[in-house]
């Protein structure tokens, strides 16, 4: 059913339909409305979820870990400093292989304090062991919340999944979202099968045991296996979901007019939508330009992205966060696939920090700038010099 709704309403709707056993969440702009909508659903008796109104994000993730280890299906949401506070325990969630799904309403990190969008919060959790997916629209945020549930819970994967949606741009903007029926979502995510649930008192287990140097390394390698299994599971679940919803989700990324593109942009999140508009405009003028929009950022689909970009002459990789002291994280991800082989010229663009708007003219500048570029260049888009 098509409705006009904000991004946070779309996420809350997906959560309502999934109806997790536990939601432990602490409000923070621009995520708060997700928590508020869900609290209302609980108060109205629409869901049987145990809502845990915790005193901080550190507690939110801790409660999620406890509940997930106990055998519950768990969802949370946060943004910015909230994620920063959560990160200590997010690493534990990943290490314990707990399938906690989280909506991350992307917002910059302080200082200076700012409530608007960039991806520095997602980048902060880059190496946490959580799977990360980026949404372009409220529709994608809804869809990937449902997909994330199955991906997180797959027995080969069993990892936290972060669904990133741009703060304000997506969370607070009303868009047309087509939701599935409650039955369709419930049927898709299925009954939750807990692994070694603590509440199974007849089969006691120990969670969170100490590991000495003789086992820590092996356990971390085993955790990496969860990430290694994730791409195949992502594709399977995505394909099944695409059939269910009728929207053409396919692959780790969306290749938009990329096949014969000489110049291309690689980007994550809502900016991809604006970039498509520019690609269309330039294509009408006969320019061979294209776009690669990353859905699955972690694990990084290096091989597939390398193949998709191999035919281009110049590629701009756009990072919505600074990795201080180096080129952007997405840039390094993409370029790493071309180590030891011929490839396009790669330029890094840092853009959109702290909610700096990205009008079509700026994207057009990027395509123009690719005509004269050298690999390793770091450029700042939309910055006053």
């Amino acid at each position, binding site marked *: 059913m098509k409705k006009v709704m904000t991004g946070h309403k779309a996420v809350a709707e997906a959560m309502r339909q999934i109806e997790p056993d536990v939601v432990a969440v602490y409000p923070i702009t621009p995520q708060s409305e997700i928590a508020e909508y869900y609290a209302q659903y609980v108060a109205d008796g629409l869901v049987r979820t145990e809502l845990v109104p915790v005193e901080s994000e550190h507690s939110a993730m801790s409660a999620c870990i406890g509940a997930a280890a106990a055998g519950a299906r768990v969802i949370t949401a946060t943004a910015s400093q909230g994620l920063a506070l959560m990160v200590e325990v997010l690493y534990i969630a990943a290490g314990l292989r707990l399938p906690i799904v989280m909506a991350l309403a992307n917002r910059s990190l302080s200082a200076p304090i700012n409530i608007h969008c960039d991806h520095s919060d997602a980048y902060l959790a880059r190496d946490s062991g959580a799977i990360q997916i980026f949404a372009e629209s409220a529709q994608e945020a809804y869809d990937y919340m449902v997909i994330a549930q199955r991906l997180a819970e797959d027995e080969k994967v069993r990892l936290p999944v972060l669904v990133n949606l741009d703060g304000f741009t997506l969370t607070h903007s*009303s868009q047309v979202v087509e939701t599935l029926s409650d039955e369709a979502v419930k049927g898709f995510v299925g009954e939750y099968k807990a692994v070694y649930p603590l509440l199974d008192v007849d089969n006691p287990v120990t969670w969170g045991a100490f590991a000495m140097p003789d086992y820590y390394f092996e356990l971390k390698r085993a955790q990496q296996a969860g990430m290694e299994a994730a791409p195949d599971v992502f594709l399977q679940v995505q394909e099944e979901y695409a059939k269910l919803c009728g929207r053409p989700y396919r692959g780790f990324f969306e290749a938009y007019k990329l096949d014969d593109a000489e110049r291309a942009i690689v980007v994550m999140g809502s900016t991809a939508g604006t970039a498509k*508009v520019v690609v269309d405009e330039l294509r009408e003028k006969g320019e061979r330009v294209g776009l690669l929009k990353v859905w699955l950022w972690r694990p990084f689909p290096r091989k597939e992205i390398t193949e998709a970009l191999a035919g281009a002459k110049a590629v701009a990789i756009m990072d919505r966060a600074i990795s201080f002291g180096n080129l952007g994280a997405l840039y390094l991800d993409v370029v790493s696939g071309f180590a030891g082989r011929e490839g396009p010229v790669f330029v890094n663009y840092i853009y959109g920090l702290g909610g700096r708007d990205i009008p079509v003219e700026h994207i057009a500048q990027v395509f123009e700038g690719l005509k004269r570029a050298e690999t390793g260049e770091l450029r700042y888009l939309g910055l006053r010099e």
Partner: protein
Amino acid sequence: MVEIRWHGRGGQGAKTVSQILAQIVLREGKHVQAFPEYGPERSGAPVRAYDRIADEEIRIHSGVYHPDIVVVIDETLLESENTAEGLKPNGVLIVNTARSEDEIRKVTGFSGKIIAFDATKIAQEAGTGFPNVPMLGAVVAVLGTDPKVAEEELKETLSHRLTPEVVEKNLKAFRAGYEAAKGVYVGG
């Protein structure tokens, strides 16, 4: 694609009507975005809200820089803000004011179509006091949207939070706003 910018003050319901408008045009099968500009959210502070309406999927996520319609709910903003900024020459400026079209043209410097009418008075006469609803009526007229469809949506949305009498008063205010702008179309 039609882009609309609403100017109001915090608490005057600019964001609310921008969202109701989105729901109205969705009923006509349009694609739509509605979003406010987030700055200091204080009652009385100048606020802007936006709509994008199109027949095809809307993918752009940037701000609106060249609106087709600008709606000024609070005329005191005419002096403090550049309300006609970026407004397309063939666009429409709709202002809630008791002043004449000529006077508005002088204040804003806008050379295109101007619709000036007293939405505050309409709202007072209808008994609601909120000029945002007659302004919504004017926008619906300028867009060429079926007013019946708009009224159905408005009625349904307002019924969630208002009594039937107050809903009826708002519908009256909506119709008066629609009538005030009827005959002027955006881009036409």
